[in-house]
C-alpha cells in the first residue's frame, strides 16, 4: 500500500527564524518535505515565520502561513485549514516542541489532527532526559552516569558523587543552549542556574564527563514496516566535549573498524525501532578509543542539521524520504532518485571523504568567548568533498571564506609554543590552524594527542601536510613537487606563499604542465550503478566524469557558509536566479559549498559543483564548462569578491559590471558619483593612515561613524562620540588590514530608508520601499523594517525613487541594486549603494509578490523590463503592513555585547504582517521570540544623551500600569519629572541591585542604552548580558522601545482616571 488514504491535507511546521543551532538546514529539509508530499498528491499547508526561506515561496506549498510559530497561531491555522495531519519532524526543535504543546493543549485531539513521523511519546522519550535514560536502560544501551536535576543544590550533590568535570545539558533547548562543561562547583552553580532558567521544563541533566571519547553520529531511517537503514555515519574529528555543530566532522567514519561500525549501527537501529519513528533520526554516540565501550549521548527524533549534512554528503535526500515515509510509504517502494534504478532501501556507499567545518562569528564578535564546548557557537558550516582526507580538509578550509587558503594563520606565527599548547588544550574556533602551527614548530603527534585527544589518524595527516609544506619550501618551482602538492589538495595561493610568487603564476605553471583537476560524481553507490546525478566535486585524478554539454551555460556563484551579515537570504536569491536561468533555456550551473542550503540540492540546478568559492576553484569549473558568463550578484560578498580575479582571467561577469561595483564600493569614486548626480550624502572622509583619523574626525565633527572600507554587514563599524572613543576604536582595530583605508562619516540621525530595485540599465523598478523603526546608526540588518513606509511623504518617496533611478542608470545596473537613505528634515541623503542582491530581497519579494531575483536574472541575461511590461517607478503599495524583525542568538554567544549599533549582530529574521503596523509588529515580535507582556515592570538605565527621550517612554510605561525601576542617575531624572520610579542599587551592591532584579525575574523589560565605551565589560554590558541570560527582552534602542510601547498600547486597556472637573471648568 503506497500511502495513507485517510489523509488529504497535511500541515507542515517550519523552524522559524534562523538562530545558532537551527539554521538554513531546515529550509532545505522543509522545502524538500513539502515538495515530496505534493508529489504524492497531498494538499500541503505550511507555517513558517521566516520570510528568507525558499520553503515559504508560494510554489512550495498549497497554502502558506507566515505567522508566528506559537501554539496560539498554529491553533488558528488548524481551525481554519482543518488539516488531517501535522508533520513536525522537519522543522527542527521548534516544530517538535510545538507539536508537543499542541498535543498537550488538546488542539490535535479537538480537531482530529494526526501526528505524523514521530509519535509523541517518542519525542518525550528522546527529549526528556529522564525518560530517555529509562528507555536506554530497557534497551540495554549504555548511557553515561547522569542525573536529572531541578535545582542547583541537587546538581552539586550529584557532582560531588560522581566527581568533576561534569557536563550540564538543559532539557528541550536548541543546540545545547545553556549547557556546558564544569570543572568545579562555582562553574556548575553558574551554568546550572542559567540552564534551568533556559529550559522550558526547568530541568538539567548533569552527566559524567566522557570528554576524549570519539564522537560518532549515525543518521538512520525507518518506515512503518520496521525496515530500518543507516544513511550515513559521521566521525567528529574533535572528540566528545565539543558540540557536534562546532566540531570538524568527517563522513564516513575514518577510524572505526567494521566491528565498531556494526556495534554502533546496531545500537542506532535498535533505538530508532524502540522509538517507533517513521522517518529520520539522528543518534549520537561516544566510543572509547581504547575499548569497545560506548555510550549513547543523544537522540534527535527528527531531521536535523546532521541529516542535511548527511544528505549532501551521500546524495541521499533524507528529508524527502522522511516526508514520504511519514505519509505512509515504505523504503522498499520508494525509488532512489539518484540512480533512478535502485530503491531508497539501501545504505549509501561513499568513494570520497566529506569534511564539514563550522563557520564561527568571531570575526565579528572579536570580544566573544571563543572557547568551544557543549554550547554551539557556529552560525553556519561548509562541506568539502575530496578523494582523501587532506584534499577534503583543505578544500574545506578554503570554503570557509575567512581569507585562509590553507592551514596557515599569520596571527599564530607570533604565538609561543606554550600559548599554542594552551589553545590546544582548551579548543577554540581556530583549532585547525593551531594544530598546523604546532606541527610547524616541531611538536610530535604524541604530544599533540596528549593535549587534544584528537585521533592520531587525523593528526598524522595534518603533520604530513606540514612536511609537504617543508618539501615545497625546499624545492621551489619544481613541477613534481607541485603535482604532489596539488594532489594532496593544496591551493595555488598557499603554494604561492611558500614559493614567494603569485597565485596567478602558480596557475600558469600548472596550466603549462597540465596539472589540472577532474570532476567526479556523487552517486550514493560508489559507481556500482549507472547514475546521472548532476552533482560533482573536483579531485586530481585520471578520469573526468563531468561532461560539458553543448548548451549555452550560465554559472552562478553561491554565497558559501552562513555567517552574520550573509545569511540564508542570499541562498534564496541564488536559487531564484538559477530557476530563472533554467526558465530562459540556458543550462544553469551552480557552485557553492554550504551543505545546509537549498541551492546545493542537486535537483535545483542543471549541474551542481560542490566546491570552494575561490578564484582557483571557480576557474577550474569555468575551464571545463566554458559558460557564457558568471553571475556574481546573488552570492553576497563572497561571490562579488571573486569578480575582479575572474575578469582578470578573461571571464565575462554578467550583469552590472565590475567598474560599477567599484564605483559603489570605493569611497572616492562613490563621492564623485553622487556629486555628478547631485545627490546628498552625509559628510565623510577617507583616510589611509591611522594617525590622520583624528584630524578627519575633527573636521567632520563628532559624533562620527568609523569603519574600514570593504566590509560585510558593518564589520568593525562604530559610532564614536569623542577623541577617547576614537582612539579606543583604533587600538581595537589594530589587527585590521592596513591596505584598506578607514572611512569616517558624519553620524547623521534620521529615518533610515531602504530601497531594493531591479534595473536593466534603462528601466528601474522599485517593488517596495522600506522604512526602519530604529533611527540611523543601527545596522539595517538589525533594524525592524516596515513595508509600506509609515512616516514618509509622497515627495520623499518620489525623491528616493528618483535617486535610485539616477544611480542605477549611471552605474548601468543590470540586475539588483540596494540603496540605503537617511531622511532628515525631508532631505534625502544617500548612505550606501550596493549594486547586488541584498538581504531584504526575499522579504520584499514575498510581501510584494514580485520575484525580484527572477526579474533581475532576466535583466542580467539581456531581457528588458519594458519588454516584461514594466515602467520605471515604485510599484503600487499593498494595503497591509509587513514588518521584518531581526532575531539574535545572544544567549548562545557569551561575552558578546547585545547593544545594537552599526555592526550587524542578528542571525535571522521573522516576519509579521497584518492590517495595521501595531498588529504586524505584535506578530513580528512574537515570531522573533520576544514576549509582549501586558503588565509588569521595566528597568530603565539610559545614557545621559538619551535621558530626555527616555522620559516619554517611562511616562508611557507608567500610564500602561508598568512598575518602573531605574539606576541612580536615570531615577533622579525621572523623579524630577514626577514619574514614580523605584531606585535600584548599582552592580556589586549587596542590597537589591540592578542585576538581582533581572536575575529574580522582577522585570519584564530592560531598556538600556549605556554604550560599551572604553571598557569592554562596563556596567551597561553586564546588565545587557544578565537580561539575555535570563531570557528577558533588553531594548538597547529607544525607537524599538517606543514601537513595543505602541504595540502594548493597542493590545491593552490602561486604567485612567476621569479628568478633573474643576480643571475643565476653570
Amino acid at each position, binding site marked *: 500500500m503506497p500511502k495513507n488514504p485517510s489523509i488529504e491535507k497535511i500541515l507542515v511546521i517550519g523552524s522559524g527564524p534562523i538562530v545558532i543551532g537551527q539554521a538554513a538546514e531546515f529550509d532545505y529539509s522543509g522545502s524538500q518535505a513539502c515538495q515530496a508530499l505534493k508529489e504524492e498528491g497531498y494538499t500541503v499547508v505550511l507555517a513558517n515565520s521566516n520570510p528568507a526561506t525558499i520553503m515559504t515561496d508560494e510554489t512550495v506549498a498549497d497554502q502558506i502561513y507566515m505567522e508566528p510559530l506559537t501554539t496560539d497561531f498554529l491553533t488558528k491555522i488548524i481551525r481554519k485549514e482543518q488539516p488531517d495531519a501535522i508533520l513536525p519532524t522537519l522543522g527542527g526543535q521548534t516544530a517538535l516542541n510545538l507539536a508537543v504543546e499542541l498535543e498537550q493543549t488538546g488542539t490535535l485531539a479537538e480537531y482530529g489532527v494526526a501526528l505524523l513521523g514521530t509519535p509523541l511519546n517518542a519525542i518525550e522519550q528522546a527529549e526528556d532526559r529522564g525518560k530517555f535514560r529509562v528507555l536506554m536502560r530497557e534497551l540495554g544501551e549504555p548511557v553515561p552516569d547522569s542525573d536529572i536535576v531541578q535545582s542547583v543544590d541537587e546538581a552539586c550533590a550529584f557532582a560531588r558523587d560522581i566527581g568533576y568535570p561534569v557536563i550540564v545539558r538543559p532539557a528541550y533547548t536548541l543546540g545545547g543552549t545553556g549547557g556546558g562543561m564544569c570543572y568545579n562547583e562555582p562553574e556548575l552553580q553558574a551554568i546550572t542556574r542559567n540552564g534551568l532558567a533556559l529550559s522550558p521544563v526547568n530541568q538539567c541533566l548533569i552527566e559524567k564527563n566522557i570528554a576524549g571519547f570519539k564522537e560518532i553520529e549515525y543518521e538512520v531511517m525507518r518506515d512503518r514496516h520496521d525496515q530500518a537503514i*543507516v544513511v550515513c555515519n559521521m566521525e567528529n574529528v574533535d572528540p566528545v566535549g565539543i558540540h557536534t555543530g562546532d566540531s570538524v566532522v568527517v563522513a*564516513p567514519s575514518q577510524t572505526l573498524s567494521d*566491528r565498531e561500525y*556494526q556495534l554502533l*549501527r546496531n545500537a542506532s537501529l535498535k533505538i530508532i525501532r524502540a522509538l517507533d519513528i517513521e522517518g529520520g533520526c539522528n543518534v549520537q554516540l561516544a566510543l572509547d578509543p*581504547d575499548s569497545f565501550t560506548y555510550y549513547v549521548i543523544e537522540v534527535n527524533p527528527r531531521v536535523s542539521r546532521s541529516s542535511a549534512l548527511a544528505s549532501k554528503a551521500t546524495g541521499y535526500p533524507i528529508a524527502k524520504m522522511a516526508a514520504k515515509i511519514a505519509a505512509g510509504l515504505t523504503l522498499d517502494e520508494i525509488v532512489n532518485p539518484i540512480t533512478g534504478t535502485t530503491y531508497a532501501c*539501501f545504505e549509501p556507499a561513499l568513494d570520497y571523504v566529506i569534511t564539514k567545518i563550522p563557520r564561527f562569528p568571531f570575526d565579528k564578535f572579536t570580544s566573544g568567548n571563543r572557547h568551544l564546548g557543549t554550547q554551539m557557537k557556529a552560525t553556519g558550516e561548509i562541506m568539502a568533498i575530496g578523494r582523501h582526507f587532506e584534499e577534503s580538509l583543505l578544500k574545506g578550509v578554503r570554503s570557509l571564506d575567512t581569507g585562509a587558503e590553507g592551514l596557515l594563520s599569520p596571527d599564530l606565527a607570533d604565538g609561543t609554543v606554550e600559548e599554542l599548547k594552551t589553545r590546544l588544550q582548551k579548543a577554540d574556533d581556530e583549532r585547525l590552524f593551531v594544530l598546523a602551527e604546532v606541527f610547524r614548530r616541531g611538536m610530535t603527534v604524541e604530544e599533540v594527542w596528549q593535549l587534544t585527544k584528537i*585521533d592520531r589518524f587525523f593528526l598524522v595527516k595534518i603533520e604530513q601536510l606540514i612536511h609537504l609544506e617543508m618539501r615545497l619550501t625546499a624545492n621551489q618551482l619544481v613541477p613534481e613537487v607541485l603535482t604532489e602538492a596539488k594532489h594532496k589538495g593544496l591551493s595555488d595561493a598557499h603554494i604561492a606563499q611558500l614559493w614567494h610568487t603569485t597565485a596567478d603564476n602558480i596557475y600558469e605553471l600548472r596550466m603549462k604542465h597540465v596539472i589540472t583537476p577532474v570532476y567526479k560524481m556523487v552517486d550514493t553507490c560508489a559507481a556500482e550503478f549507472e547514475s546521472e546525478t548532476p552533482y560533482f566535486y573536483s579531485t586530481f585524478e585520471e*578520469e573526468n566524469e563531468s561532461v560539458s554539454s553543448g548548451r549555452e551555460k550560465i554559472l552562478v556563484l553561491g554565497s558559501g557558509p552562513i555567517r552574520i551579515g550573509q545569511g540564508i537570504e542570499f541562498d534564496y536569491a541564488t536559487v531564484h536566479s538559477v530557476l530563472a536561468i533554467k526558465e530562459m533555456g540556458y543550462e544553469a550551473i551552480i557552485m557553492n559549498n554550504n551543505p545546509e542550503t537549498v541551492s546545493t540540492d542537486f535537483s535545483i540546478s542543471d549541474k551542481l559543483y560542490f566546491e570552494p568559492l575561490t578564484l582557483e576553484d571557480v576557474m577550474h569549473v569555468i575551464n571545463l564548462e566554458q559558460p557564457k558568463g558568471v553571475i556574481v550578484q546573488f552570492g553576497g560578498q563572497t561571490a562579488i569578491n571573486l569578480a575582479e580575479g575572474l575578469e582578470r582571467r578573461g571571464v565575462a561577469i554578467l550583469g552590472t559590471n565590475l567598474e560599477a561595483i567599484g564605483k559603489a564600493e570605493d569611497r572616492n569614486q562613490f563621492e564623485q558619483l553622487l556629486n555628478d548626480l547631485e545627490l546628498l550624502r552625509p559628510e565623510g572622509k577617507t583616510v589611509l593612515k591611522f594617525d590622520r583619523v583624528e584630524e578627519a574626525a575633527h573636521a567632520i565633527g563628532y559624533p562620527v561613524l568609523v569603519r574600514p572600507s570593504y566590509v560585510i554587514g558593518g564589520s568593525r563599524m562604530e559610532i564614536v562620540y569623542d577623541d577617547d572613543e576614537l582612539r579606543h576604536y583604533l587600538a581595537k582595530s589594530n589587527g585590521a588590514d592596513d591596505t584598506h583605508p578607514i572611512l569616517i562619516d558624519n553620524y547623521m540621525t534620521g529615518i533610515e530608508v531602504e530601497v531594493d530595485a531591479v534595473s536593466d540599465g534603462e528601466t528601474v523598478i522599485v517593488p517596495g520601499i522600506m522604512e526602519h523603526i530604529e533611527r540611523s546608526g543601527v545596522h539595517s540588518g538589525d533594524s525592524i523594517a516596515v513595508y509600506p513606509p509609515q512616516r514618509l511623504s509622497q515627495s520623499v518617496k518620489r525623491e528616493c525613487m528618483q535617486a535610485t533611478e539616477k544611480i542605477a542608470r549611471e552605474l548601468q545596473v543590470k540586475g539588483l541594486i540596494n540603496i540605503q537613505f537617511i531622511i532628515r528634515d525631508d532631505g534625502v541623503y544617500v548612505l550606501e549603494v550596493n549594486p547586488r542582491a541584498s538581504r531584504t530581497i526575499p522579504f520584499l519579494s514575498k510581501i510584494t509578490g514580485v520575484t525580484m531575483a527572477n526579474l533581475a536574472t532576466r535583466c542580467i541575461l539581456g531581457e528588458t523590463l519594458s519588454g516584461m511590461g514594466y515602467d520605471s517607478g515604485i510599484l503600487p503599495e499593498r494595503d497591509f503592513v509587513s514588518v521584518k524583525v531581526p532575531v539574535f542568538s545572544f544567549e548562545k554567544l557569551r561575552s558578546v555585547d547585545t547593544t545594537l549599533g552599526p555592526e550587524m549582530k542578528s542571525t535571522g529574521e521573522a516576519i509579521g504582517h497584518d492590517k495595521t503596523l501595531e498588529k504586524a509588529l505584535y506578530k513580528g515580535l512574537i515570531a522573533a521570540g520576544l514576549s509582549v507582556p501586558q503588565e509588569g515592570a521595566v528597568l530603565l538605565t539610559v545614557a545621559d544623551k538619551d535621558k530626555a527621550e527616555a522620559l516619554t517612554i517611562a511616562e508611557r510605561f507608567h500610564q500602561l500600569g508598568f512598575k518602573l525601576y531605574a539606576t541612580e542617575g536615570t531615577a533622579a531624572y525621572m523623579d524630577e519629572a514626577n514619574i514614580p520610579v523605584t531606585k535600584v542599587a548599582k552592580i556589586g551592591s549587596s542590597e537589591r541591585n540592578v542585576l538581582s532584579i533581572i536575575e529574580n525575574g522582577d522585570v519584564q523589560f530592560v531598556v538600556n542604552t549605556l554604550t560599551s565605551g572604553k571598557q569592554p565589560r562596563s556596567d551597561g554590558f553586564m546588565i545587557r548580558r544578565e537580561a539575555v541570560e535570563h531570557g528577558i527582552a533588553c531594548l538597547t534602542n529607544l525607537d524599538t522601545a517606543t514601537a513595543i510601547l505602541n504595540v502594548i498600547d493597542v493590545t491593552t486597556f490602561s486604567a485612567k482616571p476621569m479628568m478633573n472637573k474643576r480643571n475643565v471648568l476653570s
Partner: protein
Amino acid sequence: MPKRQLILEDGTIFNGNGFGAEMESVGEVVFNTGMTGYQEVITDPSYCGQIVTMTYPLIGNYGINRDDFETVTPFIHGLVVKELTEYPSSFRSDETLHGYLQANGIPGISGIDTRKLTKIIRRHGTMKAMMTDADRPAEELIEKVKEQPHYTDQVKQTSTVKPYVVPGRGKRIVLVDFGMKHGILRELTKRNCHVTVVPYNYSAGNILRLKPDGVILTNGPGNPKNVPDSIAMIKAILGGIPLFGICLGHQLLALACGADTKKMTFGHRGVNHPVKDLEKNKTFMTSQNHSYAVTHESLKRTELTITQFALNDNSVEGIRHKLYPAFSVQYHPEGSPGPEDTPQLFDDFLLMVSEFRRKEHIYA
C-alpha cells in the same frame, strides 16, 4: 615504494605505487563497496584468486588486528586501493596493512583512480588482470593476461584438508567447508553448537556417519559447477538431514535440486545490498560477495521456492525446498564485514533442526 602497474585484459593500464609483497600476480579483478571491513574482505576465502579493488579510497586506517580475520591465510591475489594508510590508528591495530600483505605474499597497488577502474568493471564485467612492476612492457603482458586460464580449483585451495571439531554441548552441526569464513563458525559457537568442519569432498556416507543434527553448506570461491562431487553429496543427504546453504552453499543446494546458476556481469560485493525476504515481508541490509547467481527460470522446474530476492536487480537471494528441510541464502547472515541484520537465519535453522528431530522421533 616501487612503482607498480595494473594491467587489465581489455588493455587498460593503471600506474600506481606498489605495496605489500613485491611479486607479480594474476587474477580476476573485482570491486567491493564496503567502507569498513577490509581485513575481513582480504581474508574472506571466497575472494580466492581475485584481485580486490576497494571503492572506498582510504584503506588501512585502523590497521590489521588479531580478531577480525575470516581465515588464517588470505587467498586474494592482490589488493587495489586509492590511498594506503601508512600510519593506522586503532587500539587493536597490531600491524599495518602493508606489513600484513607483505608477510602473506600478496601484492597491492595504491594511488590509482579506483573509481575509473570500478566503472570499467561495472560496464565490461569482471575481467582478468595482472599486477606487476611498472617497468615491464605492458603490450606483452596484456597477451599473457588474456591467455591466463580461469581458475577452477579455488574450493580445493581454500577448503580444509582434514575434518576437525569445534566442540560444544548443543546441536551437532556439520559444516561442509567450501572456503568457509570464520564468521559462520562464530555464529554457531555463539549458539553452543558442536561443530564438525569437514572438507568439501567429504562423502555423504562419511557425513551421515557423524550423525549430525544439521548440515551447513558454507560460502566459498568460484563457480559452483566446479565441484560436481559436492552436488552429488548434497543430493544424497537432502531430505535426510536439515540443510542450510550460505553463498556458494546456496548455489550448490540449488544445483543439487535441479536449478541452474549463471555468472553475473560484475557480481555483488559490498555490505549495503537490500534483500527482500518474502516470508518475513521485510527488507534487510545484507553483506554479499558472489559472482554467480541462481537463475529465476531454472527454479520453475524444481521443488524450490524463491524466498528472497535482491531489491536492486531482482536476482535470487534465498530459496527453500518445498518438501525437505532445506533452505539457503545467497548473502552472508554472519556479516563480518557488514550489517548484522539477519543472524536470525541461524536460529531459524536450529529451529528447523529441532522440528525435524521431533518429527523424526514421532514418525520413526
